[in-house]
């Protein structure tokens, strides 16, 4: 036991050191390392990109084939060009995917227990959630832009074979493209927020799918109050932002305004992340 002869005061206690500055961007870098160091990240993004572009291509091919049977007016106006560029099936799939992947970013840490190591390393828990949110939003915006642009270009290229494609300068095209780009980050952030609150992977993903995909179907457009609730949901907002409407009759409550739809787009992820930050600061890890 003579090994203990060295008294602590004889050595430099590693306490009086200059510590690196506390920087939020270090947390962003750390979350980015975590995200890119998982192989599944790449496969998932590749899959969802192909899925959306593929569904746009299939929609366009359908119209390409059926084009000769369309009425003269429909052939002239080719209003289907934009709905082929922003296919519902593809973007419903994207919503499900984004919400699940957003959730997994945090739920996987709870599931494995890694969250304890993370929290011991960064006791500022709210900052960790915010950093995850920023990285998730940024990555999904980039992926969303790529897949939305891809879907637009591929579908219009196919329809150009019938001279039925539209350019991005077409009225409503750019707005729809932005709405499609941002659908991924919006849903991923909702998933992330739910993940922080629920912490259990299967429950989170089911809750996310229910909230994003099922909930709007419970509120029909038939009555005013029901339509108003429906317009508070993300999918109806996306839908509204990707269609071009003619003049709307005053008192017609079936359509939300474009501005309202953008607000819905912003409010859902904002509320999800704020609630998540508040919750994570109060709870035991």
């Amino acid at each position: 036991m003579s090994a203990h002869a060295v008294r602590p005061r004889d050595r430099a206690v590693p306490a009086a050191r200059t510590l690196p500055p506390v920087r939020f961007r270090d947390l962003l870098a750390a979350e980015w390392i975590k995200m890119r160091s998982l192989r599944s990240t790449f496969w998932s993004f590749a899959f969802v990109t192909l899925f959306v572009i593929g569904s746009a291509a299939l929609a366009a091919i359908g119209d390409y084939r059926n084009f000769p049977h369309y009425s003269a007016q429909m052939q002239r106006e080719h209003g289907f060009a934009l709905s082929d560029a922003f296919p519902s099936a593809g973007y419903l799939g994207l919503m499900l995917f984004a919400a699940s992947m957003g959730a997994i970013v945090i739920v996987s840490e709870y599931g494995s227990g890694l969250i304890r190591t993370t929290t011991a390393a960064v006791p500022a828990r709210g900052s960790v959630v915010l950093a995850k949110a920023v990285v998730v939003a940024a990555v999904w915006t980039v992926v969303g832009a790529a897949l939305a642009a891809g879907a637009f270009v591929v579908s219009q290229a196919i329809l150009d074979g019938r001279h039925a494609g539209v350019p991005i300068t077409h009225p409503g095209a750019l707005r729809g493209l932005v709405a499609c780009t941002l659908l991924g980050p919006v849903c991923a952030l909702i998933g992330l927020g739910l993940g922080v609150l629920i912490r259990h992977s299967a429950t989170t993903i089911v809750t996310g799918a229910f909230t994003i995909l099922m909930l709007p179907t419970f509120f029909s457009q038939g009555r005013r109050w029901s339509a108003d609730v429906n317009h508070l949901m993300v999918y109806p907002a996306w839908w509204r932002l990707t269609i071009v409407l003619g003049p709307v009759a005053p008192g017609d409550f079936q359509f939300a305004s474009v501005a309202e739809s953008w607000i819905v787009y912003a409010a859902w992820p904002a509320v999800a992340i704020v609630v998540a930050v508040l919750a994570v600061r109060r709870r035991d890890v």
Partner: protein
Amino acid sequence: MGGRPWTDAHGRIPSGGVPPVAGCPRGGRPGRLPVVIEVSDLTKRYGSTTAVDHLSFAVRPGYVTGFLGPNGAGKTTTLRTILGLDAPTGGTATVGGVPFRTHRRGLHHVGALLDAQQVHGGRTAAAHLAALARSNGIGPRRVDEVLGEVGLSEVARRRIGGFSLGMKQRLGIATALLGNPPVLMFDEPVNGMDPEGVLWVRHLFRRLATEGRTVFLSSHLMSEMENTADELVVIGQGRLIAAESVRGFAARSTRLRVVVRTPQAAEFAAVLTAAGAEVEPEGSAGVERLRVTGLAAERIGALAFDNRIMLHELTTQTASLEEAFMELTAGSVEYSTGGPR
């Protein structure tokens, strides 16, 4: 029981009215070294379960302090509370005088290994450490350093999912070392390690303590602490049983026992009892064995000689620390179940 001061295993309030301190066993003046980890009247309840019950102790730098208790004694809960992962129901836990949670970044202040399995199996060891390091503003060179220090350089680019428990323990230790912290806490660090690993980790803990760091490690095995720790904090059922040096604990707890084998067992038992010993006969009739406590072997031999008793065997047995620990914690279980809840 609210507001009850910390008590020792026997429900006594330690003298002086200060928390029992594990530290300064080698003649050092108490209070000379700063207390680094201080747990004060800590209580943690989960629903109706009380995991930690008015626990108080302090850990000082420069020593390896063992945190002992049977499984379910509340060790992990205490460590989590010190790390600010769990909020205490009552009382406080501080590191360097402040609750750990007040630090915005933790790795420079406390390095901790709570559960080596708590990693994402899909990441490589290097990526796992790189992310943690980066979150605290620590550069990639330090990641390579700690990987080398724990002997994982060769497998740094391999995914953690394929690691053995022993390798994961090393990775967890590397995580704790990343920020070069003055305080290190390890929960059951040698679980799953091979003998070579156990030896390595003991040397590491000793070295870290010698460097002046506070090293606090939990275990449910006394035998582990016997060879590693200088100081002990022993808990059972969430309450403090002992906080003292390993030597002190051993001296206080270990009882010498002498085994005597003699054909005149009944006669000699009477002699020994008269001399103040506790005698417990065992074995078959004819040649019986007596387990004697309270008298040294020399004295027993002399008594046999004086009383013309023939001895076939006279053996001193030392109860191991493990036994002492079992005895103490078993007592705490009895005490707790009978006590108020």
